[in-house]
């Protein structure tokens, strides 16, 4: 693998050079590292005689950047405006109540606590399973696997991301859940003293549970975490690798001392992106999870329930009046904020470690 990464680095540079052959050779080389940091003194003269191509391209990219920020802002604004009338009509505390009753627009009482807890629980189960597995796959692909195998492997994993989530959902409830039922039952029975594994609120069923949903969700976020981590691990500087090898490190020690420290930030960022997808996953969870009637989430992995997104997906077809719909939109708003916080946390982690 040291040869795979050493071939990669040189191939990157000539590509950059040849594409901008018209400009002086120093241009592209100095620009690449300099643009995130301070601009070079020579670069400060260039903007004066800016060419139309530069200006157009700059405006286009700026426009694209502003567009996406404005889009997010407008989505947030839309959710907020739609949610306010419903929140006003809510008879109970929106943030701390478990129940969800929006049938009668004149007498609504709904809270998101249950949705929040189930959303977080399913996503965390998924993350706990997917993170180590993805790490293993990414390390195998970049450090252990022969180059040809790695390529086809990576392709297969990326293909996993192209499977629609309804397929995962149906597979989960029709094939996977029955298959692991004996195992789930055994865990549930054996470790029932442990609160997280206590009999759930959809018992005696152990199929449509957060446990099952979390595993399916793990499979769904696996490709995201894997391919991003793989990209990062691949970029471990060759001198680091060669240095470690030269010092007599075994392959595992090379990974531990160079690849992992170098790729840590990227790996965490990838996991956070995976978490973002898990939080927002909709139809697979709506299909898999059973929803207990009149009982709340009780911090067992064998509970059922709805997540924010699955709740909205299950009921959108019957949004008959704006106030009731507003209740769901308010829930969507909380999910929006939650996802935002997760991504924000991920960015700050990457930012800190990346320096």
């Amino acid at each position: 693998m040291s040869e795979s990464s050493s071939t990669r680095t040189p191939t990157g540079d000539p590509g950059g050079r040849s594409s901008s052959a018209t400009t002086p050779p120093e241009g592209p080389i100095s620009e690449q590292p300099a643009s995130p940091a301070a601009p070079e003194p020579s670069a400060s003269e260039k903007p004066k005689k800016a060419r139309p191509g530069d200006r157009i391209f700059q405006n286009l990219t700026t426009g694209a950047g502003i567009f996406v920020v404005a889009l997010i802002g407008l989505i947030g604004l839309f959710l907020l405006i739609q949610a306010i009338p419903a929140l006003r009509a809510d008879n109970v505390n929106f943030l701390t109540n478990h129940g969800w009753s929006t049938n009668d627009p004149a007498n609504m009482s709904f809270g998101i606590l249950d949705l929040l807890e189930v959303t977080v629980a399913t996503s965390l189960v998924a993350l706990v399973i997917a993170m180590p597995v993805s790490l293993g796959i990414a390390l195998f692909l970049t450090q252990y696997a022969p180059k040809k195998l790695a390529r086809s492997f990576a392709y297969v994993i990326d293909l996993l991301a192209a499977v629609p989530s309804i397929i995962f959902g149906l597979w989960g409830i029709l094939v996977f859940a029955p298959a692991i039922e004996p195992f789930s039952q055994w865990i549930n029975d054996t470790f029932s003293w442990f609160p997280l594994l206590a009999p759930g609120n959809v018992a005696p069923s152990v199929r449509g549970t957060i446990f099952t949903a979390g595993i399916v969700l793990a499979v769904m976020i696996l490709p995201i975490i894997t391919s991003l981590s793989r990209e990062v691990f691949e970029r471990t500087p060759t001198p680091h690798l060669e240095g470690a090898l030269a010092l007599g490190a075994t392959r595992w020690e090379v990974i531990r001392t160079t690849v992992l420290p170098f790729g840590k930030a990227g790996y965490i960022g990838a996991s956070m992106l995976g978490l973002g997808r898990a939080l927002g996953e909709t139809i697979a969870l709506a299909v898999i999870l059973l929803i207990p009637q009149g009982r709340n989430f009780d911090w067992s992995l064998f509970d059922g329930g709805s997540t924010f997104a699955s709740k909205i997906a299950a009921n959108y077809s019957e949004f008959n009046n704006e106030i009731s719909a507003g209740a769901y939109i308010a829930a969507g708003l909380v999910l929006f904020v939650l996802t935002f916080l997760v991504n924000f946390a991920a960015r700050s982690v990457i930012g800190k470690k990346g320096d």
Partner: protein
Amino acid sequence: MKIMRPLSAVGIVASAALVLAACGSDPAASNSSSSNSAAAPAATGTADVACGGKSPLSAEGSSAQKNAIDIFTQQYSKKCSGQQVNYNPSGSGAGVKQFNANQIDFGGSDSPATGADLDGATKRCASPAWNIPMVVGPVAVAYKLSGVDKLTLTPSVIAKIFSGTVTKWNDPAIKAVKGNESANLPDKAIQVVSRADESGTTDNFQKYLGAAAKADWTKGAGKKFNGGVGNGAQGSNGVATAVKAADGAITYVEGAFAKDGLTPALIDSGSGGVELTSENVAKSLDSAKFLKDGTNDLALDLNGIYASNTPGAYPLLLTTYEIVCSKYANADVSKAVKAFLTVAATDGQQPLSAKGYVPIPQSLQTKVLAAVKAIS
């Protein structure tokens, strides 16, 4: 990395092909079955249709009748070549709303438009708006319980099970129902499964319990299940899957889903257990009354059906309506609406049984056709 771009495009094409193949099987299935279902004593025959008018017609509303509308559209296109109907299954509320806002040519709804909705519809039409019942679907109380392949339930027992008063299969209340004397009912918990999503099926089921078992069902109606017991699952298919997965489970579900391991219970409204069959459902409809007798607004008095104890009539059913103007401002639209509804009420009815609906009985068909004819 570079090699992946074209390959993933191949993947997308492949999965798209799979999806298309899955869609394609649907119409074929309904075509092949249209010939073999001559069991129901019902609406058959082909009527003279004056084809023409607006195409495509636009309609929107109840998702419960989506499959039926698809069949109607097929028959309509066959009968009046080239004529199309676009139906958007966006929910009954949306159907009424869009109809009243003059966005669509006719609306579909799980329940007849009444009160303010009907006033709005009348305003849009500048003439009375009518509810025309077109699709009838029975709802089964289906269970899975090993060793019990025939079970009779009364509305009162159903209400008790779905509100959590009766929790064991060997409860004396179940044993006491006539017809269950010989059933070997185990000492097993009843797992109630309901619809987790809001649905017209739930609404009609709860209305039924409210009408047929007033004393035992106090939880009211509505599209959300109010029983407060058991677990919810997503959609009719999800409910059926959940029941199949658990011995001792019971649910209410559209008749078409009560198969492959699910057994529909017989319902005893006071005159003996009645099986869920097309004939028995049609019998219920035969004795049905209309909310506005003598007019062409054919909104059925479902509470009357639910509470009746006509021998051999299966009472637990839901009907969906097409909401139309009695007089359209545009003659083109009215011509197409009339043609479509005529086909739906005649050629369209027989193929419905393959999808789990029940063709409307002759008596109702006559009234429907008279109403359709009166549209101008």
